[in-house]
């Protein structure tokens, strides 16, 4: 076990350090530490507007989502590495060549993901908060408790994704039923206790009122979920000879109004047939947004009227911008090496596919506005959401070209991305809070967005594409 575990840790480190350099990647946890350390000094200011318990709840939500993302990425890693580096193979998929069982390998994989990302994200964040505690007057016990409960939040996200994906491979119906059961159970508990469901999130409960029995109960639940995942785990099945009808040609005709129809049609088929479209919509879009909605609804009273809808529309926009990674992460320029296709052409076609996918956040925000009785504000909320998404997606294209999902760990890239998006987020929060209909002005974001796309095409045509 230690041998395989250590080699998987080394493999994960090498994947990241190969992509963007050892120093740049090593600086990533330092940056997280710095953000947490400096952010701690802003807490007294924030507490005057939002109760500290709500701030803690939102931090737990962030780490829950981090767990979702890490779990999803890890399970798709082999396909992604193959696309990026050609015939890559990860230790996780070595059951066929090593005398080790699939379940044993998966157990090591789970342990590796937990420890690796603990040191990459969770520990630096907690350590920053702990290091600042003597200066901010936060009791050391509370800071240490936060570190513990953030780890548990992160692990909750990981084990939910592992469990659902293990179920999904065995039986799609069982997976969907489990999602429904989980939602119904949590919702039912919220109705019975008359509490916002977000407040029933176990790691947050532990943070709010520590007890050894709660800690033990939570660890047991997580261990049981991991154990079920490991038992149910089954690696990708070998190749099949299933025959598919020819859908490319008709699809090319349908998307003929977009630039580079063959490339857009191929992307859409990739999303559909790989299951990425549905999987990502569920794990990277709907579930995080539902969780965010619950957590955000707690701060609704601190926002101006209709502020919650518009804040949510902007967050949805930011999350929807990651759809650019959906259309790029399983594709590398190597697949096009034998065709007369430039990197700029690919970026343009990816942006076209990304734009088509914006129907999902638009419909989602429309539904949210309808369900919350704010139908009058559907148009400005949808415009704000889609404009933010297009802008953030274009910034991503400019900064990362065709490799957004790997360059996110480059400190310089991430910092620039956060600054460029943060400024726009702050400006349009103020604009939308002043008057909901002013949010319509966010259409101006399409101008810098389009500039970023143009700059991306020029910038990434000038360098040798990754994957060669």
């Amino acid at each position, binding site marked *: 076990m230690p041998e395989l575990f250590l080699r998987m840790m080394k493999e994960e480190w090498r994947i990241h350090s190969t992509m963007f350099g050892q120093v740049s990647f090593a600086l990533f946890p330092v940056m997280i530490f710095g953000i947490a350390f400096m952010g701690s000094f802003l807490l007294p200011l924030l507490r005057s507007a939002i109760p500290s318990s709500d701030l803690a709840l939102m931090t737990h939500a962030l780490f829950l989502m981090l767990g979702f993302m890490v779990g999803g990425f890890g399970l798709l890693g082999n396909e992604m590495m193959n696309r990026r580096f050609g015939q890559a193979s990860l230790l996780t998929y070595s059951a066929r060549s090593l005398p080790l069982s699939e379940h044993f390998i998966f157990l090591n994989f789970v342990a590796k993901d937990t420890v690796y990302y603990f040191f990459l994200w969770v520990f630096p964040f907690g350590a920053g908060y702990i290091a600042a505690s003597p200066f901010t007057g936060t009791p050391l016990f509370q800071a240490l408790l936060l570190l513990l409960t953030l780890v548990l939040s992160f692990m909750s996200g990981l084990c939910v994704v592992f469990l659902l994906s293990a179920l999904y491979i065995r039986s799609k119906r069982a997976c969907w039923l489990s999602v429904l059961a989980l939602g119904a159970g949590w919702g039912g508990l919220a109705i019975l206790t008359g509490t916002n469901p977000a407040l029933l999130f176990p790691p947050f409960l532990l943070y709010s009122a520590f007890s050894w029995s709660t800690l033990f109960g939570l660890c047991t639940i997580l261990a049981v979920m991991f154990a079920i995942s490991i038992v149910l785990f089954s690696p990708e099945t070998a190749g099949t000879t*299933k025959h598919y009808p020819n859908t490319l040609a008709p699809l090319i005709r349908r998307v003929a109004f977009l630039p580079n129809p063959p490339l857009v049609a191929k992307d859409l088929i990739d999303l559909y047939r790989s299951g990425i479209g549905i999987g990502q919509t569920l794990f990277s879009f709907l579930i995080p947004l539902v969780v965010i909605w619950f957590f955000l609804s707690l701060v609704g009273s601190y926002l101006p009227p209709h502020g919650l809808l518009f804040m949510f529309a902007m967050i949805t926009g930011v999350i929807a911008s990651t759809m650019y990674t959906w259309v790029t992460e399983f594709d590398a320029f190597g697949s096009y090496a034998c065709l007369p296709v430039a990197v700029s052409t690919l970026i343009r076609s990816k942006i076209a596919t990304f734009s088509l996918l914006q129907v999902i956040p638009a419909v989602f925000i429309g539904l949210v506005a309808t369900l919350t009785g704010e139908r009058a504000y559907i148009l400005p909320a949808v415009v704000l959401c889609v404009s933010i998404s297009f802008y953030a997606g274009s910034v991503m294209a400019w900064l990362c070209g065709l490799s957004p999902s790997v360059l996110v760990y480059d400190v310089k890239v991430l910092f620039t991305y956060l600054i460029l998006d943060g400024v726009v987020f702050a400006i349009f929060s103020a604009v939308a809070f002043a008057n909901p209909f002013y949010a319509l002005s966010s259409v101006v974001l399409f101008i810098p967005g389009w500039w970023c796309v143009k700059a991306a095409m020029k910038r990434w045509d000038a360098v040798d594409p990754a994957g060669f």
Partner: protein
Amino acid sequence: MAPVLEVTDLSKVYGDVTAVDHVSLSVEEGALFGLLGPNGSGKTTMIKILTGQIRPTGGSATVLGLNVEREGLRVRERVGIIPEQESPPSFLSAMEYLEFVGAVRKIPDIPERAERWFDLLEFGDKKHVLCKDLSRGTRQKLMFAQAFIHEPVLALIDEPLINFDPIMQDVVKDYLADYVRSGRTIFLSTHILEVAEELCSSFAILHRGRLLHSGPIADLAEKGLHLPEFFLSLVRKG
């Protein structure tokens, strides 16, 4: 005959590794040119530079009169390429991939052309199977078909026979021989010397990025030499 491909003092450096080291050579129209060398000698890097996929660090190259650095896209429009790794898109079927290539290259009559390739390379039963579910050999057939489906005047092919069984190797060798007989040119990279000796009209040997030899195969026969022993003696000398 006019050269269709000309390389002058070409170099490519990756960090502290020199993959191609001041190489100069030319390939005439109608030749079946073999670029030979051991693993890691720089053959694949040469093909990538010549098809405008990566930029040279030094020197220059022209393919069909086009500068590969400035006009790489136009080079890829006009030539056929088989890359080192057979990597058709995972979630398109074999037929869809050829249709995709046809749509990108704007080739008419793709279904008819595709059928001819399915027949020639004997994989019509796999045309509606996703590329990710195809065997390596079938993927290689598909990559072969996509490289020649637009009937280019020049094809640059990297280890085209490596995943084929002996019967299919024979089919492909016949096809390549007919291809150059019709006046078109093949630039073939391989380390299978017997194939090169059987097929090529001229050849070059690369080793550690440097050009050790370049010339017609016929010159070897005149000296009573065979390609494998000539190759090994040169490479061992370094």
